[in-house]
């Protein structure tokens, strides 16, 4: 498990055209890593995430992505992700092909991927319009034992999963605390796992059943304090709800969005500089 700068980790492991899952459910969203992907100008990515967040609005608006697999795409409690909408509704800056699921389906798909299964199963009732719209990408099957109606959801196996976490220890083991969403499943489903962390410690303060990712699963760890901002890291800093509200105005118009990205993300060499620019840190 090499400890790399985030720039080295992205340059070494994320390539154009790959499928990339940035997970963390509202909490521990790897914003710094997404920004570095934008700075390095990755293209034609297939982004995977249950709840595409502001960082996905940014990557899509900056032209990094041509595909999106997701289950809920909005600004939580605020409204739309306008760059995501612009891509789907008007193909700007380029068309975005979508593969859409429910949360429960996507959780099952990650779990199947993490378990080495080709598909996962869940109960199935009447078809919704989503079932009709995606025409056969999910299949209805009968339980071989009871005959119960089941839905088979194909496994999700990202080329690269990127997570943010609280701590890494000397050996390179990583600890996640708080809301974990499907982060562990996304990590174990991936071919390559990159992690950014708040801090490096000698020993993880981890009880026996804590969510710890052993060092030998991880391709690279980068220490990026504040790396989940404006999302949050429990025990380190809170969610920047004010920024989520402000994003609604920033992202609404293409020109203002591009200017904001230029003056903040692209103008900053790294995440530490971005946080200073946003006056989040001193």
């Amino acid at each position, binding site marked *: 498990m090499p400890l790399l700068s985030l720039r080295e980790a992205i340059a070494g492991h994320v390539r154009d055209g790959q499928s990339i899952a940035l997970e963390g459910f509202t909490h521990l969203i790897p914003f710094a890593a997404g920004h570095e992907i934008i700075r390095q100008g990755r293209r034609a990515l297939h982004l995977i995430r249950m709840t595409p967040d502001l960082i996905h609005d940014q990557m899509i608006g900056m032209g990094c992505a041509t595909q999106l697999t997701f289950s809920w795409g909005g600004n939580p409690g605020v409204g739309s992700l306008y760059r995501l909408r612009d891509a789907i509704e008007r193909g700007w800056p380029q068309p975005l092909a979508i593969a859409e699921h429910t949360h429960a389906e996507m*959780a099952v798909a990650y779990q199947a991927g993490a378990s080495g299964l080709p598909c996962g199963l869940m109960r199935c009732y009447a078809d919704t319009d989503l079932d009709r719209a995606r025409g056969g990408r999910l299949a209805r099957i009968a339980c071989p034992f009871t005959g119960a109606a089941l839905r088979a959801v194909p496994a999700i196996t990202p080329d690269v999963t990127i997570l943010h976490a609280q701590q890494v220890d000397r050996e390179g083991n990583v600890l996640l605390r708080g809301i974990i969403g499907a982060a562990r499943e996304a990590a174990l489903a991936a071919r390559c796992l990159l992690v950014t962390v708040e801090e490096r410690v000698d020993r993880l303060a981890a009880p026996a059943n804590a969510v710890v990712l052993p060092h030998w699963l991880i391709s690279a760890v980068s220490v990026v304090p504040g790396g989940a901002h404006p999302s949050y890291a429990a025990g380190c800093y809170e969610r920047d709800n004010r920024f989520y509200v402000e994003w609604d105005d920033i992202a609404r118009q293409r020109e203002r969005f591009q200017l904001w990205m230029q003056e903040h993300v692209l103008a900053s060499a790294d995440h530490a500089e971005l946080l200073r620019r946003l006056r989040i840190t001193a």
Partner: protein
Amino acid sequence: MTTAYNADEMMTVTAARQLRNGAVCFVGIGLPSAACNLARRTHAPDLVLIYESGTVGTRPQVLPLSIGDGELAATATCVVSLPEVFAHYLQRGRVDVGFLSAAQIDGYGNLNSTVIGDYARPTVRLPGSGGAPDIAACAREVLIIMKQSPRSFVARLDFMTSCGYLGGTGERRRAGFPGAGPRAVITDFGILRPDAVTEELQLVAIYPGATVDAARAATGWPLRVAPTLETLPAPDPADLAVLRELQAATQAAHARALRIDLPRPAQT
């Protein structure tokens, strides 16, 4: 405190009153979350709230902006993973009430939160499914809270994201859904409930000062009215006071500027 109130407050107080103490409730963000937390702070202190972020038995002091705010985790009985909350709690049948909202509803309680217009070339792309389809399917019963207007209460959905009673008259039951479907739709005019036979939503209760004509004008299908239409009482001043306190605390919390004191400079 003034006892004057607006339609939003009336709606939230009425929705909160639909929740019985001790029920296990899977909560959607926004209006449902406000109603559930009002219920928990008033008549239903033992209401168990589950948010799809995996926070089980949470007791937030301020309303969360997102379903994953730290406040929800910090005040929860336990925090489980997403696969767990959807499989072990929801699909396994451990949720009494699913509390939802949506962009569109039809006369049989089916919901749209996906698109306005055509799916492939939508006029408005909405956030999508999230947890709603599975909550609507698996919760023992469903409550829906939505403002009533001809654009949101429609004869035909642009897209059916989550199933209510489908075409009515038992179609949902025959499809084998474990949950019974929408028990009530709470709007800014009153309460709609499914007819016992056809399962079509009809107006069963109305707020003081609201009229049937206005409710009909705000509905995109010919809205039926129950033979005995109840007039609901004005909101209890104590409930109103708790709701306003909760909303004021929430506003202050969401407007606070964030500062991060980093433990040490970035290492590489």
